[in-house]
C-alpha cells in the first residue's frame, strides 16, 4: 500500500480501529493496575523503516518490547514498546517492587509481568478489531525482548520488508494520570489484511 492508495476515509477508519482497540486495551490494563490510564487518539502514518526506531529515541535506545503475532483473515503483529524507565514503572506497579539505581537487568518475574501487561493490552486491542470486523484470526502467545530499539524492531520491519519499503503504522500513545508514557503500541499488518478489514467494514 502506498500514500496515494490511502484516501482520507480509509485513514479515518484505521484511526478509529486503533482508537477502539487501544481504548479497550487501556480499560483492561487500568482495571488490572488500578490506575488512571488513558489513551490518546492514535496516529496513522506511513514511515520509512529507518524512521520506526526514531519513534522511541533512536535505534540504540534500550527498550522493553512485547510482541504478539496473529494469523488468519488478518495476519500481522502488534508490539508494545516501552522505554526502560516506563517498563520499570509498570513492572514495579504490578509486582509492588522498586528498582534501585544499580538496576541493570530485568529478572524472570519482571519479564513475566511485562509480558502479561503486553499480553492483556494487545489481546484486547486485537480482539476488538475482530469484533468490529467479524474477521477470524488466532493470536499467538506473546514474547518479550529487552534490547536496542533498532534490534527489537528488526523483526516487524523485516516482516514488512517482504511486501514493501514503507510501514503503515497505527501508533497509540498512553497517558498515566495525564502524564504521557514514553512508549507506544504498534499494529502492523499486510496489504491483504488491510483489504479484508476495509471490505468487512464496507469500504473496499
Amino acid at each position, binding site marked *: 500500500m502506498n500514500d496515494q492508495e490511502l484516501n482520507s476515509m480509509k485513514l479515518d477508519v484505521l484511526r478509529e480501529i486503533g482508537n477502539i482497540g487501544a481504548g479497550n486495551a487501556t480499560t483492561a490494563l487500568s482495571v488490572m493496575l488500578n490506575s488512571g490510564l488513558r489513551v490518546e487518539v492514535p496516529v496513522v502514518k506511513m514511515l520509512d523503516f529507518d524512521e520506526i526506531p526514531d519513534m522511541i529515541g533512536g535505534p540504540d535506545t534500550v527498550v522493553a518490547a512485547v510482541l504478539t503475532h496473529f494469523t488468519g483473515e488478518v495476519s500481522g503483529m502488534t508490539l508494545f514498546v516501552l522505554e526502560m524507565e516506563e517498563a520499570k514503572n509498570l513492572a514495579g506497579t504490578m509486582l509492588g517492587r522498586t528498582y534501585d539505581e544499580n538496576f541493570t537487568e530485568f529478572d524472570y518475574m519482571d519479564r513475566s509481568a511485562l509480558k502479561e501487561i503486553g499480553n492483556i493490552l494487545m489481546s484486547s486491542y486485537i480482539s476488538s478489531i475482530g469484533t468490529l470486523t467479524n474477521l477470524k484470526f488466532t493470536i*499467538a502467545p506473546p*514474547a518479550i525482548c529487552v534490547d*536496542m*530499539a533498532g*534490534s527489537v524492531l528488526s523483526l516487524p520491519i*523485516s516482516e514488512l520488508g517482504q511486501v514493501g519499503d514503507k510501514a503503515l503504522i497505527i501508533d497509540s500513545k498512553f497517558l498515566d494520570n495525564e502524564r504521557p508514557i514514553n512508549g507506544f503500541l504498534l499494529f502492523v499488518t499486510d496489504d491483504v489484511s488491510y483489504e479484508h478489514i476495509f471490505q468487512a467494514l464496507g469500504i473496499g
Partner: protein
Amino acid sequence: MGEVIKVGIADWKLCKNPDTITTIGLGSCVGIVLYTATDDSCGMVHIMLPSSKEIKNNTNRAKFADTGIEDLLKALEKCGIKRQQLVAKIAGGAAMFQFSGKTDLASVGERNVKAVKEVLAAFKIPIVAEDTGKDYGRTIVFDNVAKKLTIRSAGKGEKVI
C-alpha cells in the same frame, strides 16, 4: 579521526580512511563488511531478508542478502578494488524474541546468516570473522585502518573481531 558513516536499514555505503563505518541496532538483520588488507576503501551493507527471489517487491536491492552484497561488491570494484582480495566480517542474525512453538518469525535471523554465507561463498569472498546468532542486538563499527570490527551490545559491553 575521520567521520562516522552511518548505514541505515536495508542500505549500503562505502567508506574511505580515516572515516569509520557503522550500523546501529542489528537484530535479525545482518551487517556485512567487505574490505581488503591494503585498500583505503571498504563498504558495509545492512540486509534484512535472505533472498530477493522469494519476494515480489524487490526494488530496494539493499534489503536482501543476494542483491545487497552484489551491489556493494560492484561499487567496491568501481573504486578499483580487486574482488579476489576482498574478505568479509559479518555480525547480526539474532533471534530477538523467544516464541513458544515453532514459527517462521523466530528463524529470520538464522536464515539471513545462512543466505549471507552462501552469497559470499558464491562470490568466493572468505569470511574472516563473525559474531552471529544468539538472542541480542548488535551495533557494529568498522575501522578500516585497524581492520577491526567492534560490536556493542546493550548490557554486554564491547567485543572486537
